[in-house]
């Protein structure tokens, strides 16, 4: 009888201990979870932008996928005909060359004109100014850019030589600087001219800058890179 009582007590205590431990674990889990959320509640806005960003990228990739799929289908359809498949290849080569900068291109866009200021305090336009404008244009989605008819390609540099001479693609350029860009016109203009945009900043310190939008009958025309693009080192 005495033994049986002890056994019951032990079992009861065991169960109680088990329950207690379980409850504690549950609590730890909840506490640690709440800790994470408290940090991350601050970032909802950021997450929304991030989501929009990835949605856009996905959409773009999807479009390209469809496009390429169609191209492949065309190749398959026109396999028999030599002339037609050759046309397809030429079309593809043209697309590559547009990105590369090896063809004259046209489209909607903007023209930016900058002049050196006579005011010593405002100073001249520097190669860094031009570099930043080109960078801002690329950010705004520009597909083709030129400065004084020098096409900006992937390997283009914009430097100052001997403190005064500005060179683009190793060619000297002089004020006034005319920068042409093809892309979504509204977006290009607003991102450069809008509050805090790079052109807006230049204007505020007194530089002589103007932006002109292209019209339907007067598209932006950008010449091709006028030298051979050669590579020696990359394979």
């Amino acid at each position: 009888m005495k033994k049986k009582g002890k056994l019951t007590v032990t079992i009861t205590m065991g169960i109680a201990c088990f329950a207690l431990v379980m409850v504690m674990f549950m609590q730890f889990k909840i506490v640690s979870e709440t800790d994470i959320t408290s940090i991350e509640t601050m970032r909802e806005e950021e997450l929304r932008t991030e989501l929009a960003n990835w949605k856009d990228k996905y959409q773009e990739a999807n479009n390209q996928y469809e496009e390429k799929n169609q191209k492949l289908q065309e190749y398959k359809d026109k396999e028999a005909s030599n002339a037609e498949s050759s046309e397809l290849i030429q079309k593809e080569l043209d697309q590559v060359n547009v990105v590369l900068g090896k063809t004259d291109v046209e489209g909607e866009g903007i023209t930016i004109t900058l002049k050196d200021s006579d005011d010593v305090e405002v100073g001249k336009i520097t190669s860094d100014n031009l570099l930043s404008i080109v960078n801002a244009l690329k950010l705004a989605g520009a597909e083709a850019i030129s400065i004084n008819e020098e096409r900006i390609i992937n390997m283009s540099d914009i430097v100052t030589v001997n403190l005064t001479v500005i060179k683009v693609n190793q060619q000297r350029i002089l004020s006034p600087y005319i920068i042409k860009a093809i892309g979504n016109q509204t977006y290009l203009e607003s991102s450069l001219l809008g509050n805090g945009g790079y052109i807006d900043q230049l204007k505020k310190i007194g530089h002589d800058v103007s932006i002109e939008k292209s019209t339907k009958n007067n598209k932006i025309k950008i010449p091709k890179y006028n030298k051979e693009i050669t590579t020696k080192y990359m394979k």
Partner: protein
Amino acid sequence: MTNKKIISLVLGIMCFALTVGICIQIRTVENTNSAVSQSYTENNLRGEVLKYKERYDNKVKDIEKLDQELEAKREQVTANNSELEEAENQIKQGNKLNGLTDVTGPGVIITLSDSKAEASSVMDSSLLVVHDLDVLSVINELKNAGAEAISINDQRIIPTTAIVCGGNIININGEKIGAPFVIKAIGLPETLANLARPEGYLSILKEYQIGVELKKSNNITINKYSGVINYKYATTIQEK
């Protein structure tokens, strides 16, 4: 008798502890209830972001597969036609220059890291970190020195790549990257290494105690651009 007393005492203490535990838990749950519902939308958002990222990555992989098929098709079509073969070669070379294929070659690897100096030891602590303009200038100097392909933390520089500030990180090709910045460039190593000359941009950065390291290498691999290039506005002017 004493035995029983001890047992009930122990049980009593345990019950007490259990009750306290439950009470604490109920309070925690109550406190966090509001946060939990908020974090619910957050977690949803985070899940969505991950989902789209994954879908994007999968699409890009699909596109890669398509590209291979297309190339095979093109080769098949152009096999017996010297003019078309030339066009096909130009497409391949163009894609290489536009950053759509992995490339290898000799060159340099430049590492830029934020200064290790105490922020309080200088007037303006923002001088101690690597900025978007610093990276942009270094890239520009590399291009000036004849670099043929460039990447920053494995983000390939393509014709449309912009380098912009996004708080304490830098945004390249829509991807956020942070210091240290590892810039790889393919070209003649001796010319590229000239970036470290006195009065060059790298030397200026060093003066501000930014960590600058330049290594020459005979075998650098630069990854291809992982996204898609999609032009909508620029079209070739047809010669008449």
